């Protein structure tokens, strides 16, 4: 699989919006108009729509998969959907909009490159829009696309769109996000989703699909920023590969070359990359995202949880650091209690030593009551770890800059954090 250029091939995006803003309908529309819906799926939802007394096919039924969701007509969990056009394959994380599902949106956004945020043209920017934009920016989306939906219900009015456009720009002054796009659409009737709308002739920008097909998401593969968390040590102990000792993992950021000088963390031992193995194919380099196996010139002791990095640019070796933490669990955060911290392939014990600031994510103002961090809250906290870990700022590297916390008693993932300096 060598001559394939991945950077343009796959785009992951997440959808956000309040309940009934039309997320599920929009995704259904994208699937439907890009002809990614199969006959039997369409039969199935047509029948269900009829049974529920709807005249038109309810496209949201395509994504609302669990029984409870269909019965209540809401999206509870993150659902993943796939479609492709001749230009790109798309993975959609469809996440629910209610405040009690902030954690699901964080989850969906953590693996996405782009966030699509829906705004109801009748309501304009509301509290939820602020929250969704903030989360998209916190998780460092490469692009945020605002879809002003239900334009059919405001007579496709340009004046109304301009008002909302202004509200969004004001919001962005508070949040700060990069690469913003704003499109007027009607998910229900398909305007500007896949096909250019006859009703919105005053809008010169691209349709949503066109934008998704063309936005740039590629890394710049600067070798300074290479990070290689060791997942697994490969020692075949067979006759043919008697002395083989390879470090398997997925390169996170940047690019590496055979011959590069590297440092192993936390031991700080140095060596050079002898070879990059890929199922018997000889290769001289690897770039961010590649799953590879690295062999080194020197025999040094390396195990899972270690990180191999370019000697010219080491991450911080930290025993105490700050993260923006999103709390996921019903049981509130306990200050001074211990959690297991997972950082890439490394696992250490940790203590949450202090809550620095807590945000009211609906207003983006600081919450004075920072005593209790409950489910779906987002706060800046200080974490102490039992042995130092090697971190980067999340905005520099999403892999070496992210952590999760696990409750030792229940094994549940209770929080996700992004390293901030």
């Amino acid at each position, binding site marked *: 699989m060598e001559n394939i250029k991945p950077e343009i091939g796959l785009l992951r995006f997440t959808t956000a919006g309040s309940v009934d803003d039309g997320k599920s309908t929009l995704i259904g529309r994208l699937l439907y108009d890009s002809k990614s819906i199969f006959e039997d799926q369409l039969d*199935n939802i047509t029948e269900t729509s009829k049974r529920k007394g709807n005249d038109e096919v309810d496209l949201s039924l395509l994504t609302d998969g669990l*029984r409870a969701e269909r019965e209540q007509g809401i999206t509870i969990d993150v659902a993943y959907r796939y479609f492709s056009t001749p230009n*790109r394959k798309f993975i959609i994380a469809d996440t629910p909009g209610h405040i009690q599902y902030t954690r699901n949106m964080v989850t969906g956004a953590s693996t996405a490159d782009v966030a699509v945020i829906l705004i109801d043209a009748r309501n304009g920017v509301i509290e939820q829009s602020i929250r969704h934009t903030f989360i998209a920016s916190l998780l460092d989306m490469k692009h945020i696309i605002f879809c002003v939906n239900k334009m059919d219900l405001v007579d496709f009015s340009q004046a109304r769109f301009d008002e909302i456009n202004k509200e969004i720009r004001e919001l962005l002054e508070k949040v700060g996000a990069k690469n913003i796009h704003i499109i007027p659409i009607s998910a229900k009737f398909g305007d500007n989703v896949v096909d250019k709308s006859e009703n919105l002739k005053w809008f010169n920008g691209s349709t949503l699909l066109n934008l998704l097909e063309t936005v740039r998401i590629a890394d710049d593969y600067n070798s300074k920023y290479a990070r290689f968390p060791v997942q697994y040590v490969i020692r075949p102990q067979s006759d043919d590969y008697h002395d083989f000792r390879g470090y398997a993992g997925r390169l996170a950021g940047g690019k590496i070359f055979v011959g590069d000088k590297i440092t192993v963390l936390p031991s700080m031992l140095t060596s050079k990359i002898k070879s990059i*193995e890929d*199922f018997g194919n000889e290769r001289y380099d690897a770039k961010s995202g590649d*799953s590879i196996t690295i062999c080194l010139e020197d025999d040094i002791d390396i195990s899972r949880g270690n990180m191999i990095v370019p000697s010219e640019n080491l991450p911080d070796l930290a025993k105490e650091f700050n993260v923006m933490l999103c709390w996921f669990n019903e049981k509130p955060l306990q200050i001074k209690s211990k959690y297991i911290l997972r950082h890439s392939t490394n696992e250490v014990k940790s203590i949450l030593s202090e809550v620095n600031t807590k945000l009211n994510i609906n207003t983006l103002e600081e919450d004075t009551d920072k005593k209790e961090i409950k489910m779906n809250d987002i706060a800046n906290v200080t974490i102490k770890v039992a042995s130092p870990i090697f971190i980067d700022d999340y905005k520099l590297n999403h892999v070496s800059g992210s952590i999760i916390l696990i409750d030792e008693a229940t094994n549940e993932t209770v929080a996700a954090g992004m390293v901030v300096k």
Partner: protein
Amino acid sequence: MSDFKINTNHLKLLEDEAIFIMREIAAQFEKPALLFSGGKDSIVLVHLARKAFWPAKIPFPLMHIDTGHNFDETIEFRDNLAKEFGCELIVKYVQDSINQGKAIEEKGVNASRNKLQTVTLLDAIEDEKLDCAIGGGRRDEEKARAKERFFSHRDDFGQWDPKNQRPELWNIFNGRKNMGEHFRAFPISNWTELDVWQYIMYEKIKLPSLYYTHKRKVFERDGTWLAWAPFMELKPTETVQNLDVRCRTIGDITCTGVTLSTANTLDEIVAEIAASRITERGGRADDKRSEAAMEDRKKEGYF
């Protein structure tokens, strides 16, 4: 040939992701096993596992839950594959679960052992002390699967609780568990049927010839063509015909649909799938039973 322009740039990314998951499984679990059905998805899993650990052998066994209602060729293919790649192979029989009275054979024309596999699988996980079963499930297959995690937690009864799943963030997978619990892991969650076929084509992966066109005795039921086998009951209106078909999925004979097709090469199959308008599960009788059939089976511990 097709007039489809097919995008393949994404295959490398899907492969990198799946290999990453394979290695996380090997690192985080003590005794995983790869559920091998003989179908194309599990054959792709084996290929990905070989790549993940090369030049070492795959560090976990393959496990087949055998309903006894197989295409002969599946078994032969399975045994050869295990031998060729030096994999340990565990086979567990649904018939044993039936003999032990743990599973009760279904009756009637739509009788299938597909659902009974759950009993055998859960027993096998317990007997072999497995802590992770690796499956070829894909989120595009079915609505309930669209919500599935890469690392999917099962309680000590083997059950899935879709409303209370562990969040999965970035590439950090939490495989911690209590005694008696286990995980299901799905390395090709993000692949579609077309991705699987394109990958098979690019990587030149060997498949059982059942996937290519061949003459077979088939009959039509509820709009689906099913392979005929001597132990299957026919309705009075159904007749067996000998037609050119190929399998789109391979599982238990009683509920695997076949497609009328003369596609003889991977190119032709990929073109056919790309143009096709029915999901592959649309051909599986087991999912037609009710709208939430898959969700219910999965909660109980099905693949």
